[in-house]
């Protein structure tokens, strides 16, 4: 088996008295596409944000590419990572948000080059060259100079994917990337993601697009109220679920 990109063992997370994650165990191998499904409030997005250390894990272990998220281990002791160390780790993980979160004061091309230039200290020309290639790849080569407000939702999300790819990440996180889109625009974003998966990118996708999950993913995880209820190949989880809760959820969304 290929080396593990993400490994979670007993991950807990609470907001005050509210326990959002109640012991998550899962593994994602390098090059694998994992889709996370489940009702809203089940903790899928929170788990995704923990991987990027946008949220702190309260208990359990969460590792990305063999390294702990947010901490350094020396002997039996854990040390919190410094700000710049966390930033360096985040730079290796791409994230795409439900609400796109493009920088509205920057053009599409500037959105894509900001990370490489500011974080990786790349030469502007090199970053620009890659931005051109990436925007071409997501089908927006002609929109380099457009501001986000001049783009449709689907186009904005594709720029957001290009922005994440510009950092040459080893792992891509998608947080309901098509949930804020008009139905007719969903396809163009899923096509880009499908292409990424074919190129061997390791991806964790929180989604409600069951068709995408079935076709593209290597594994599907069904989450409910902070725990993994069922995990396995898509044909199993989506086609022949063994748990009642999975069945009840799927009967509503399919």
């Amino acid at each position, binding site marked *: 088996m290929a080396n593990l990109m993400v490994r979670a063992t007993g991950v807990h997370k609470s907001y005050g008295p509210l326990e959002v994650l109640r012991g998550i165990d899962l593994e994602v191998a390098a090059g694998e596409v994992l889709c996370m499904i489940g009702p809203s409030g089940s903790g899928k997005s929170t788990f995704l944000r923990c991987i*990027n250390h*946008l949220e702190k894990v309260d208990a359990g272990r969460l590792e990305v590419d063999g390294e702990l998220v947010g901490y350094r281990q020396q002997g039996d002791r854990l040390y919190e990572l410094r*700000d*710049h160390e966390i*930033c*360096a780790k*985040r*730079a*290796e*993980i*791409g*994230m795409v*948000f439900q*609400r796109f*979160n*493009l*920088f*509205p*004061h*920057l*053009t599409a091309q500037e959105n894509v080059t*900001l*990370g490489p230039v*500011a*974080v990786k200290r790349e030469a502007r020309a090199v970053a620009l060259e890659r931005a051109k290639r990436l925007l071409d790849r997501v089908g927006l080569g002609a929109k380099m100079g457009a*501001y*986000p*407000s*001049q783009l449709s939702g689907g186009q904005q999300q594709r720029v*957001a994917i290009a*922005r*994440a790819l510009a*950092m040459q990440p080893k792992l891509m996180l998608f947080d309901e990337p098509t949930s804020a889109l008009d139905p007719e625009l969903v396809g163009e974003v899923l096509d880009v993601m499908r292409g990424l998966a074919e190129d061997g990118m390791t991806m964790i996708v929180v989604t409600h697009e069951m068709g995408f999950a079935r076709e593209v993913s290597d594994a599907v995880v069904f989450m409910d109220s902070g725990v993994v209820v069922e995990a396995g190949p898509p044909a199993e989880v989506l086609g022949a679920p063994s748990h009642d809760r999975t069945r009840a959820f799927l009967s509503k969304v399919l």
Partner: protein
Amino acid sequence: MASPPTERMSEGERTDAIVAVPVRHPGRWVSAAVVLVLTAMFVHSASVSTTVRGGHRQHRYQWDIISRWFFSHQIVRGLLVTIELTVIAMAIGILLGVALAVMRMSPNPLVSSASWLYIWFFRGTPVLVQLLFWYNIAFLYPRVTLGVPFGPAFVHLNANTFITAFVAAVVGLGLNEGAYMAEIVRAGILSVDEGQTEAAQAIGLTRLQTLGRVVLPQAMRVIIPPTGNETISMLKTSSLASAITVTELLFSAQQIYSRTYQTVPLLMVASLWYLIVTSVLTVGQYYLERHFARGASRALPPTPLQRLRGRLDRVHAARALPPVPAGERR
């Protein structure tokens, strides 16, 4: 994509444009007449009307005296000091405001309460009192010393010579402005969606880079209008420096009329200059706002020149409309 309506129109039969008698607004005509009469009265009193002062018949506004002093050496020098005061005090205020706003949002409770305390103090006391206070700072701290706190000192400065009236005015106005700017900057930062910070962090930007490259540029749209307001307000507030003998615009005018007793004309000279500089600042603010509106709206708002051209075009287009046929007139 929806097809443009004109295409659909041409398919069916042509519909006639609506011809209707517009609603009359007699109230508008009356109020316009009132405004016109009042304006005429003012123009008359300011231009040709005369009055008797000390046995002499003179122009009511004494424009000759105003124009004699308008570009005089003393007034122009005072104006330059006013502008200098405004620029330096605003620069201090803005830098301090950003620092205080960031401090205010710090997770460290000591830092955030220090910022709160500063704002509480400087907003809670009158500027004039603060200016007088800085002018007399030598009473509290006769010697300014640079060195290790509670340890050896390296440099001694005599506060009386070091803090001149001008320095006291700049420090007083700037520190006071910082308190107001802090709240304006904080409001701007809060107006930026949290998703922006997350997206910036997700690509690995540090907290400082996120603030400088993502949050502040967007906050500018909210920060600039009140800051323009503050600048204009500062231009006029700087006249308080006359109370601590800074020879800015108002104090220069006062010095002249205390000699010549031409009080009102010289106050008018000062007022006209304040108006002129304020107008220039207003224009500058407009273009600054336009610059930071990039990406916020689909199209930038037109400049006044573009708007004028658009209005002229519309007038031309209206003229070109065909006249209403005589049969349909009532």
